């Protein structure tokens, strides 16, 4: 390969000094002259992460305060509009937690719920994201599907329970179906929204670099919509849990939602709180997973 024409000319009239002035030399930033000691590094780390540390400290204090208030309210069985007479104390819940983690049945409830979320949510993402992308790009598909989606979208997933039981042969399938429905619409709508916000100038830039329709779709529309797709996935995951728990409470035989409801029927009050906390932790964990995936997929957005 011969050298490009740009290099061949010997008389380099590009002002080197001017170029140096145009931007800070990266070497100057990344390579300080003397290696810093651990103390200075530590200090620097502290300075850079001060805001984060502060938030973490306050967060821990606030959680402890919550536990303390809960403890006091239940120990003194406060009745003030709401009745804390039968509400389990944090320690009682902890006891039932210790019991539960050694109980394979409890673990099975959790695993089954996770499996339903995984299947329902994955299906919603696998269908919702591509459908949103295609609807955003092809007017006809949009015109055909959008009205139907708009009519179905406001129906809460819980309202689908009777219909789902009729539609699907097994309970398991109808619960997964309801989880799917709950997460499907937020994913679809956000993907569509992302597509509608793609900067047309970027599309033009791609076009005059020789990109054809398919490449523009893959290289411009898709990455440009990713932030909104991930918003949709996050919201969808939240709604998936809401729908799942509702479905499990109504028609399930297993699952953490069923566990919580059953605890109420069996008058095991500590298990009610345990079920609720488990749902909260699982929901939090799954949205953290999505956030992590988002950062992996969109490295340009993490600062």
């Amino acid at each position: 390969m011969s050298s490009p024409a740009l290099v061949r000319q010997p008389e380099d009239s590009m002002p080197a000094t001017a170029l140096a002035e145009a931007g800070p030399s990266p070497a100057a930033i990344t390579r300080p002259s003397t290696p810093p000691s651990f103390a200075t590094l530590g200090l620097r780390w502290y300075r850079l992460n001060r805001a984060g540390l502060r938030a973490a400290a306050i967060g821990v204090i606030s959680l402890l305060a919550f536990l303390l208030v809960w403890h006091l309210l239940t120990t003194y069985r406060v009745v003030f509009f709401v009745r804390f007479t039968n509400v389990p104390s944090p320690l009682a819940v902890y006891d039932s937690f210790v019991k539960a983690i050694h109980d394979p049945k409890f673990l099975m409830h959790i695993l089954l719920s996770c499996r339903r979320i995984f299947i329902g949510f994955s299906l919603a993402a696998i269908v919702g994201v591509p459908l949103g992308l295609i609807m955003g790009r092809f007017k006809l598909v949009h015109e055909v599907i959008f009205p139907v989606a708009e009519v179905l979208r406001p129906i809460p997933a819980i309202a689908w329970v009777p219909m789902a039981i009729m539609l699907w042969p097994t309970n398991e399938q109808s619960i997964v179906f309801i989880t799917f429905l709950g997460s499907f619409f937020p994913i679809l709508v956000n993907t569509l929204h992302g597509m509608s916000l793609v900067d047309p100038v970027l599309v033009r830039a791609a076009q005059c670099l020789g990109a054809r329709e398919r490449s523009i779709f893959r290289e411009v529309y898709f990455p440009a919509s990713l932030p909104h797709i991930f918003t949709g996935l996050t919201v969808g995951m939240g709604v998936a849990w809401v729908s799942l728990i509702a479905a499990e409470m109504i028609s399930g035989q297993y699952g953490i939602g069923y566990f919580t409801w059953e605890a109420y029927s069996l008058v095991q009050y500590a298990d009610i709180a345990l079920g609720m906390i488990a749902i909260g932790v699982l929901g939090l964990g799954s949205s953290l997973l999505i956030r992590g995936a988002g950062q992996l997929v969109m490295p340009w957005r993490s600062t």
Partner: protein
Amino acid sequence: MSEMLANTSKGHIEVRNFSLAYETIEGPVQAVTDTQIHVKPGEFVSIVGPSGCGKSTLLNAVAGFLKPTTGVVTVDGERVNGPSAERGMVFQQYSLFPWKTVRENVEFGLKMRGMPSSQRERAARTLLGLAGLEAFEKQYPEKLSGGMKQRVGIVRALATGPKVLLLDEPFGALDAQTRVIMQQILTNMWQRLKISVLFVTHDIDEAIFLSDRVYCMTARPGSIKAEIPIPLERPRQQSMMMSSEFLALRRGLMSLIREESLKAMGGEITDLGMQGLNIELHGHSLADVI
């Protein structure tokens, strides 16, 4: 690769009997009428004119984004039907892909052509080196300064070896010092590549400093009011901007544009009317300042 980067002999742009009207609810808006321009192979031509006169419209039609209502745009005798890698474009808003690193941005055009990744990586590195950006190849555009972004924009447009380079106020968002440096870099690349350039700006100094020829457009509906050859010798230095030759060209263009700008703001305000007002601003009359 030399054949790819140095498109020597070709790049003849011709715009004939051109007019373009935008369809709006209130009816067609005539943006450009009855316009003839041409850019010879290897020539650097600028278009100046008052705001809203249709400079971008004309340039976008040459790029192939807009279809002329009447007339034709040809490059080397071939009719322009749509955007293509033959006509590189640099945008005022930089328009780098935020999800691609600097190098991936530069590689984009080569990737679209199906060049294998190791080869295009090498090409992109070479080009980035020439623009003084090799150290930033792995950065995402967001982290770069405006001047650096636009250097990437120019290099990206040149990477595929287009016949012509179209620039729409590429330095409009940059500060004065960076602007001057960018002008030097652009001139430099243009001279090495011998590529035809069509450059839209509203900065008269910039137009004179860079160009072989300047077209001055009338207020909307835009058409060519004057065509001014710039006989300044090359290579041009910043100091030339003080020469009497430069200043004479500047005065000429300035008065042409001022006439049109005043027209664009509404026919009532005339130079004479301004002088009649006789408002003093830092020792200049308002008429002189405008």
